[in-house]
């Protein structure tokens, strides 16, 4: 028994490290309402910096530690609060999440750029020293970790309850404006929270690095454990977060001994944190519909179907030209662009129109691809069935998380994606660990499209058709309901709309679109594996979708190009892309419609400046200017009424401040 207790105490080590990281996350979130997705990424970068100071530069360990925890980390925290996160707490959840995802991508980019991949060893504290209690052994590093978590817990408790600024921090949670009226300084409070938060991320990263290794992704993704711990405390309670972290530490330590190591459940200890997160989120009590939020989001103008059709035809001509002239590798990249753009279309529906954030879209694409490979029917029927299966999985995910909104929903989909990735995609009955499955090129009406150029053109046709279908949906009854639900769920409820099934349907449709893209992608590559649908790829997917414009088709197309470049290009192109993303993410605070909407404004400005001059020089063609308005589709729209305003928003709509919508 005593050895069991000793064993348990020692096993608290991993829980203690999670607790340190999670408490930083909770502190920033509860004080500023910004959920820092990049928390783990900062821990990772700072673990590298610590390695740099202590190993590469040879500073004494204690000095390196002091420098990282008390100089570098707080400086980063201050900088982030001052220039990135300020005011983000009031933004829509898709924006605040995306900005921190941008930080995550930036951190990984920074780390890979500065610390090129090579073998590095993170040395544990007091390496070699260990203690024995009963029949169990504990290393000095583990003991230090446990002690550090106790110090952090006590320190945070003292800060929040025994100091003026700590009291102000707790007040800031409730109402920063009120705090200002009483002479408090919410900005200073927020700065402090970010400084401490990043510092704790650093400590967590440094303590875990010797166990996990100095790995860009492993260290970054360990934050899921911190998310899970924090979710138990509803992202705001520090004591519950510590309990959650310790519990999770114990579960992950003990599970391998009691769970089978073979078959599907063999992976279960890898996904325990994600399962824990998913379970905690599902168990959260039902949030009541919030009343009295400020509503109204200025979206980009909705093009008429005719106009969209014309642009679509133009795009197809362009793709056809490229398909004829591109080399095989470039054609594959072009097909990848089409895939990513289609997956982003699914986000236009879900996030842009519906206001829900999903971090599992690549997983749905993976489900579609897996079904396409397994069905062995490389034709339209097989493709549709694959999309339907993905839609079914989407509906299955939506069911348990129906009650969740905003951030909680996003985290639940992330947990689901992580579970699918490790437990399903990597298992033997699916793609297999590091394995791939063959897939046939799609054949349409018996004609197999064997040339890559032709296949890419077909993918572009799918993109255009899906885009136009999406616009038709947005213009119709369903589109109006989507916008109404996004603006005021409470009003929709009191008007008699059962939003649960509507949301399940929305998720299913969105997942089906992603699944279709996945199926087409498998056919393009003729082979596909779990690595193509790794769950964390959904993070940059959301990032680029939102930065380029998640409310418009153009944004999705541009985002597709951007994501392909991010995954497949040279460092110099990536650097340019990082700058575009950074600028775009910062601009999101002013206009959540992304780069595409700035482009539209530029286009309208150009049309105002140059249009009349060009038109006056052109001979007047019959029907040229009025063709659009006179088309049956446009007439139908005018008949229905109301949509005209959306088509040509009044100029003041452009400058109106964008209202935040709740989580």
């Amino acid at each position, binding site marked *: 028994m005593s050895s069991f207790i000793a064993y348990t105490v020692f096993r608290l080590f991993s829980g203690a490290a999670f607790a340190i990281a999670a408490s930083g996350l909770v502190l920033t979130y509860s004080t500023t309402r910004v959920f820092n997705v990049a928390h783990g990424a900062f821990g990772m970068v700072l673990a590298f910096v610590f390695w740099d100071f202590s190993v590469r530069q040879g500073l004494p360990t204690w000095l390196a530690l002091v420098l990282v925890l008390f100089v570098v980390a707080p400086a980063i925290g201050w900088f982030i609060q001052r220039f990135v996160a300020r005011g983000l707490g009031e933004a829509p959840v898709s924006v605040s999440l995306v900005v921190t995802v941008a930080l995550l991508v930036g951190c990984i980019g920074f780390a890979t750029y500065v610390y090129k991949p090579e073998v590095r060893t993170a040395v544990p504290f007091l390496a070699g020293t260990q203690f024995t209690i009963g029949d169990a052994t504990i290393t000095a590093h583990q003991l230090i970790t446990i002690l550090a978590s106790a110090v952090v817990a006590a320190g945070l408790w003292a800060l929040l309850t025994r100091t003026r600024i700590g009291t102000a921090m707790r007040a800031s949670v409730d109402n920063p404006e009120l705090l200002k009226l009483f002479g408090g300084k919410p900005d200073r409070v927020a700065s402090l929270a970010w400084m401490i938060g990043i510092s704790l991320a650093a400590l967590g990263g440094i303590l875990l690095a010797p166990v996990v290794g100095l790995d860009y992704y492993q260290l970054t993704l360990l934050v899921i454990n911190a998310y899970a711990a924090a979710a138990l405390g509803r992202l705001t309670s520090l004591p519950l977060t510590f309990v959650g972290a310790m519990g999770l530490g114990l579960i992950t330590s003990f599970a391998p001994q009691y769970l089978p190591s073979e078959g599907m459940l063999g992976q279960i200890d890898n996904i325990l944190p994600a399962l824990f997160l998913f379970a905690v989120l599902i168990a959260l009590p039902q949030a*009541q*519909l919030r*009343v*009295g939020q*400020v*509503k*109204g*989001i*200025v*979206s980009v103008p909705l093009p008429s179907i005719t106009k969209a059709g014309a642009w679509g035809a133009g795009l197809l001509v362009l793709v056809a030209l490229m398909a004829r002239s591109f080399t095989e590798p470039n054609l594959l990249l072009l097909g990848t662009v089409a895939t990513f753009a289609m997956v982003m279309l699914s986000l236009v529906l879900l996030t842009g129109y519906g206001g829900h954030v999903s971090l599992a879209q690549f997983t749905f694409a993976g489900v579609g691809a897996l079904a396409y490979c397994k069905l062995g029917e490389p034709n339209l029927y097989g493709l549709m069935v694959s999309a339907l299966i993905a839609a079914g999985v989407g509906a299955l995910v939506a069911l348990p998380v129906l009650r969740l909104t905003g951030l909680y929903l996003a985290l639940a989909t992330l947990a689901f994606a992580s579970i699918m990735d490790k437990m399903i995609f990597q298992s033997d009955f699916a793609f297999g660990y590091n394995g791939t499955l063959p897939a046939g090129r799609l054949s349409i009406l018996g004609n197999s499209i064997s040339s890559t150029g032709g296949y890419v053109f077909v993918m572009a046709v799918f993109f255009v058709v899906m885009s136009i279908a999406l616009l038709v949906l947005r213009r*119709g*009854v*369903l589109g*109006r*309901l989507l*916008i*109404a639900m*996004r*603006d*005021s769920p*409470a*009003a*929709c*409820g*009191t*008007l*008699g*709309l*059962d*939003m649960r099934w509507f949301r399940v349907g929305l998720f299913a449709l969105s997942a089906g679109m992603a699944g279709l893209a996945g199926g087409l992608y498998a056919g393009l590559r003729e082979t596909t594996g779990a690595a193509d649908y790794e769950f964390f790829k959904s993070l940059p997917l959301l990032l680029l979708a939102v930065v380029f414009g998640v409310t418009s088709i153009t944004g999705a197309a541009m985002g597709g190009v951007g994501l392909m470049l991010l995954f497949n290009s040279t460092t110099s192109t990536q650097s340019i892309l990082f700058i575009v993303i950074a600028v775009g993410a910062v601009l999101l605070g002013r206009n959540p419609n992304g780069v595409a909407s700035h482009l539209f404004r530029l286009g309208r400005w150009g049309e105002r400046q140059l249009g009349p001059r060009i038109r006056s020089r052109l001979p007047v063609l019959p029907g040229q200017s009025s063709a659009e308005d006179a088309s049956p589709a446009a007439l139908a729209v005018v*008949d*229905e*009424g*109301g*949509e*005209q*305003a*959306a088509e040509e*928003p009044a100029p*003041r*709509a452009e400058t*109106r401040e964008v*209202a935040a919508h709740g989580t």
Partner: protein
Amino acid sequence: MGRDALLEVDDVVVRFGGVTAVNHASFVAEAGRVTGLIGPNGAGKTTCFNVISGLQRPTSGKVRFDGRGLTHTPVHRRAKRGMGRTFQRLEAFGSLTVRENVRVAHDIHQGLLGLVKPSKSDVDGLLERVGISAYAQERADSIPTGTARLLELARCLAGDPKLLLLDEPSSGLDESETDAFGELLRDLAAEGRGVLMVEHDMDLVMTVCDVIHVLDFGSVIASGQPADVRNDPLVQKAYLGYSDDVPDGELAGVSAGTGLSEQTLTDIPAVEVTAQLPAVRP
């Protein structure tokens, strides 16, 4: 009362932590009548509305509507049974135009996701009826507050409700608009609908309501016809903090110490209660 109550609120209690927002409140609203629910700010009126419409689960107590209990009925099903409401803090669909707002309500009411298309006249007729046709093409987040309240009413009416719950519907309307609004309420009641209205405009309440319930500190302290309620000393005490007829001690536990300052009275035109009140409608 001689009529069947359309809505019965029975001994409802709502507590938020240590605060009791609604304290054993019971009242009814009848079909074909305009019922007023009045009381000082913070008396629990909107919380009552939230309980009735299902946005807030009561700590205890029951709500019956149209002869059936509603305790576990979700929000949308209450609406389907014929309950419509507007909000004190506006809940218009800000990104949609005024006409689209009403169309959405129509689509939801029709079910089958709008396969039965509302004719343009249905929607425009409603806008006409509440008097906001001029704003049909405007985005709902750009119209004046009073207009947005009327929009919420039009949106409700698209669902052809048996009971209308109107939360401060006339705030933001000018005098002539308020008069027209009063007429509209009488018309709606004459069609057989029940109207339950939270309102601070005492002129309107006294003119339009058939029955008034007065809430204070979450409890119903008076019910009756406008003339009776107007002269009720407990009501005067609740609104003004004093009454010539009720000594301070007598109200302990009900409404003593409302803490309403004279300044608060400018927010709520309750001064009217003791001042010159307009004639009560027969």
